[in-house]
């Protein structure tokens, strides 16, 4: 909504009301007309039926469409009932108050944005490769544990976190999570939160990069088409800078066409002998290329590479997700994976080791509960919110959409043959890397209904245009195979399967590379800001040497972990991915702890359980997972147990041990487990400090019956817009008053 009255002197009393009366809203909420009752009963019944089909009926297969119904119906019910409970009891928004977008409006970063556009904007910022990868790996345990956690987790934890952080940051002029932690938890808690955030960002960037490396290793087609995104982005950057500034959707469309051409051309190039020699790169080389790229991209001007690729990635993200949803509903694949697999009750799964509790909950982070979102929900989005009550739609609703993406990724991964799934996702250390040894390994797992032949693996590789699909770990290739299987049934048939596979790889790589340079830049600013406390010159972001130095430190940090993961004899991603999930969930625990301290200040003790529930769960999960990783005596699970086992073997003078075939590999394991174990300890200690300070701050507030808040001073609002996607009758009526008064322009009238 845009105000068109140019006159700043109009008193509020000259305008229609800026909010629908609370009483009217409550009456609307309680008005249960027969039609409304019928709709909600239908949603509840359909959702209930879907859950029965998923959880109780044990047929040979289950249709993918039940996943969609179970998810969507549960989201609708949670959004309608639980999120309004949180709104009334904890958040208590007030549309009579101006948002920072209104009272700090500067035409640039502070500017009221239409709620529907901001929803898309916010969603594009929070959703990336994370929700596409975790669910794929968790499919090892069967479909039900992952499905339950993604859906229940989002409504009780993930969406709650995103909503609260967004609202609290908005009340504080768009302050960042770090600043809020400092305000609420004091110096010690604030510093611990900052350090934890910085290390967590390093590990997250490293592991995302590792996913790309694993997808592109020995894949000339993939390397060529992903490499082409760089010249395409550079071209788009120049186009926007010099030829047609501001023509964003035009250039995105051109970029998209070029991207499709690059995927098609990749198939041809990979078949030529020069193309195959030039673009068949081993994983270590690709890792180094990404590290060099990461540094260059982070110091180049934003307009040249980052901004155009961001447009392209937003464009692809929204398009592909809609396409995938449509495809799943039309194709309705049958899923033969059992509800609980053989590995649900064991801790020796070849994809991610460790027992279901807690490792399911750290393997699927994004999609259920992602701490990283707290960095977006504070800072960027709150500066654009038009009216306070819209935060429920944008914060809670935005996260529901990400959860839905995770469900679709899970469905895509589940739709491929289980034997192929395990051959793709088990590390080369156990599959041996060839189709014969991989098939033998998978068959030796004793999975019911699985009988994998080398021919099946060879055929899959041929279908997707790859040399081999064995041990393509990291989740992205599996998702790509699943997506290709589903999409080819909708468009193109098996002839287009290779295209769809590389399309999926490309769009995951695009998200991840955008996250890599944006993450590096954000981390660099955080580091510069922190160093600025001791050496004020670092605060000056235009100081080249400082910027380069901090970028180099950050790239060095994630680059080292990336190289470690790529060269790890135990199969990098399988040992590192839990660390990614733990890091992300610990950040969520930090964000929820800050929310708890803030909500307690406001004094409504009776409703604090809404925050305590997910906080306690995230804490128990991450602390347990960290303790497993630190103290478990099982070498496959505990980093230090693994460390000790290999060190002892070296001391005994052995020249091969476990999956390490020579002394160098054994030394690498000793080194890697030391770093992984140390990181686990660092995360745990920092988070416990944050939690303890938050609990103390909360208790102080509870004892005092609430304390003075840390919000920005209240400014009366002078604009109006409805809260949710669809305006209620009362909201429509008020919107009409504003339109008749000539104070708003309707949508699309720009």
């Amino acid at each position, binding site marked *: 909504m845009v105000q068109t009255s140019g006159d700043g002197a109009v008193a509020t009393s000259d305008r229609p009301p800026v909010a629908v009366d609370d009483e009217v809203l409550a009456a609307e909420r309680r008005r249960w007309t027969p039609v409304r009752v019928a709709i909600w009963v239908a949603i509840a019944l359909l959702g209930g039926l879907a859950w029965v089909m998923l959880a109780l009926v044990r047929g040979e297969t289950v249709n993918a469409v039940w996943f969609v119904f179970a998810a969507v119906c549960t989201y609708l019910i949670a959004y309608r009932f639980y999120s309004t409970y949180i709104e009334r009891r904890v958040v208590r928004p007030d549309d009579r108050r101006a948002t920072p977008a209104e009272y700090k409006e500067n035409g640039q970063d502070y500017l009221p944005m239409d709620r529907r556009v901001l929803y898309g904007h916010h969603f594009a910022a929070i959703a990336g490769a994370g929700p596409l990868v975790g669910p794929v790996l968790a499919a090892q345990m069967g479909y039900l544990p992952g499905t339950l956690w993604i859906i229940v987790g989002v409504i009780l934890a993930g969406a709650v976190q995103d909503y609260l952080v967004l609202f609290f940051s908005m009340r504080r002029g768009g302050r960042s999570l770090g600043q809020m932690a400092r305000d609420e938890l004091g110096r010690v808690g604030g510093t611990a939160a900052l350090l934890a955030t910085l290390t967590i960002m390093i590990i997250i960037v490293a592991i995302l990069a590792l996913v790309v490396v694993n997808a592109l290793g020995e894949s000339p087609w993939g390397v060529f088409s992903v490499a082409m995104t760089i010249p395409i982005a550079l071209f788009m950057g120049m186009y926007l*800078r010099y030829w047609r500034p501001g023509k964003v959707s035009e250039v995105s469309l051109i970029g998209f066409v070029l991207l499709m051409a690059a995927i098609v051309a990749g198939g041809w190039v990979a078949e030529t002998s020069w193309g195959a020699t030039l673009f068949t790169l081993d994983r270590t080389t690709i890792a180094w290329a990404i590290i060099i790229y990461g540094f260059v991209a982070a110091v180049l001007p934003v307009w040249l590479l980052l901004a155009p690729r*961001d447009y392209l990635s937003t464009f692809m993200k929204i398009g592909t997700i809609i396409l995938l949803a449509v495809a799943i509903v039309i194709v309705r694949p049958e899923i033969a994976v059992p509800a609980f697999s053989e590995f649900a009750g064991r801790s020796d799964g070849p994809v991610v080791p460790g027992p279901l509790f807690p490792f399911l909950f750290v393997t699927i982070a994004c999609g259920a509960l992602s701490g990283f979102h707290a960095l977006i929900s504070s800072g960027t989005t709150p500066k654009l919110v038009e009216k306070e009550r819209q935060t429920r739609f944008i914060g809670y609703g935005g996260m529901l959409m990400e959860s839905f993406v995770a469900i679709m990724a899970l469905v895509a991964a589940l739709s491929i043959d289980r034997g192929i799934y395990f051959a793709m996702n088990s590390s080369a250390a156990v599959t041996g890397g060839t189709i014969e040894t991989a098939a033998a390994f998978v068959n030796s797992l004793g999975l019911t209904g699985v009988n994998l032949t080398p021919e099946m693996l060879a055929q899959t590789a041929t279908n997707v245009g790859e040399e081999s699909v064995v041990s393509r770990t990291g989740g992205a290739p599996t998702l790509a195979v699943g997506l290709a299987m589903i999409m080819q049934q909708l468009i193109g048939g098996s002839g287009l399967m290779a295209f769809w596979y590389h399309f999926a790889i490309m769009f995951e790589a695009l998200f991840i590379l955008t*996250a890599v340079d944006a993450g590096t830049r954000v981390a660099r600013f955080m580091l510069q800001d922190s160093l600025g406390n001791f050496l004020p010159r670092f605060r000056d972001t235009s100081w080249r040497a400082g910027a380069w130095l901090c970028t180099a430190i950050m790239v060095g940090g994630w680059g080292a972990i990336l190289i470690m993961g790529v060269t790890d004899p135990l199969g990098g991603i399988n040992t590192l991915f839990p660390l990614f999930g733990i890091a992300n969930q610990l950040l969520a625990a930090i964000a929820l702890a800050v929310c708890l301290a803030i909500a307690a200040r406001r004094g409504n003790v009776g409703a604090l359980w809404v925050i305590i529930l997910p906080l306690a769960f995230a804490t128990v999960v991450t602390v347990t997972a960290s303790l497993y990783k630190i103290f478990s005596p099982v070498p496959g699970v505990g980093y230090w147990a693994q460390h000790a086992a290999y060190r002892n073997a070296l001391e005994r003078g052995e020249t091969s041990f476990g999956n390490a075939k020579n002394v160098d590999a054994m030394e690498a394991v000793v080194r890697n487990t030391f770093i992984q174990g140390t990181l686990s300890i660092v995360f745990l200690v920092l988070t416990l400090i944050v939690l303890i300070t938050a609990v103390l701050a909360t208790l102080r507030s509870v004892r005092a019956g609430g304390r003075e808040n840390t919000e920005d001073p209240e400014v009366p609002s002078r604009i109006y817009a409805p809260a949710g996607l669809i305006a209620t009758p009362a909201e429509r009526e008020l919107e009409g008053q504003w339109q008749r008064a000539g104070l708003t322009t309707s949508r699309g009238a720009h």
Partner: protein
Amino acid sequence: MLVRWCRGLVWWVQGVLGEDAYIRYLDHHRRAGHPGPPMTEREFWRARSDRQETDLRGRCC
């Protein structure tokens, strides 16, 4: 009806990508009553990308 939907979709996609930023800036400029003429379209986009250098929109995993 269909035309309205398509127009709505185009409006939404352009909004999400940020294409309407200049129009929104002009609108803000007029309402806020800033002295002096607003930036031209070219100046605006240049200033916007220069600002992104230090004020970065986050991207998540």
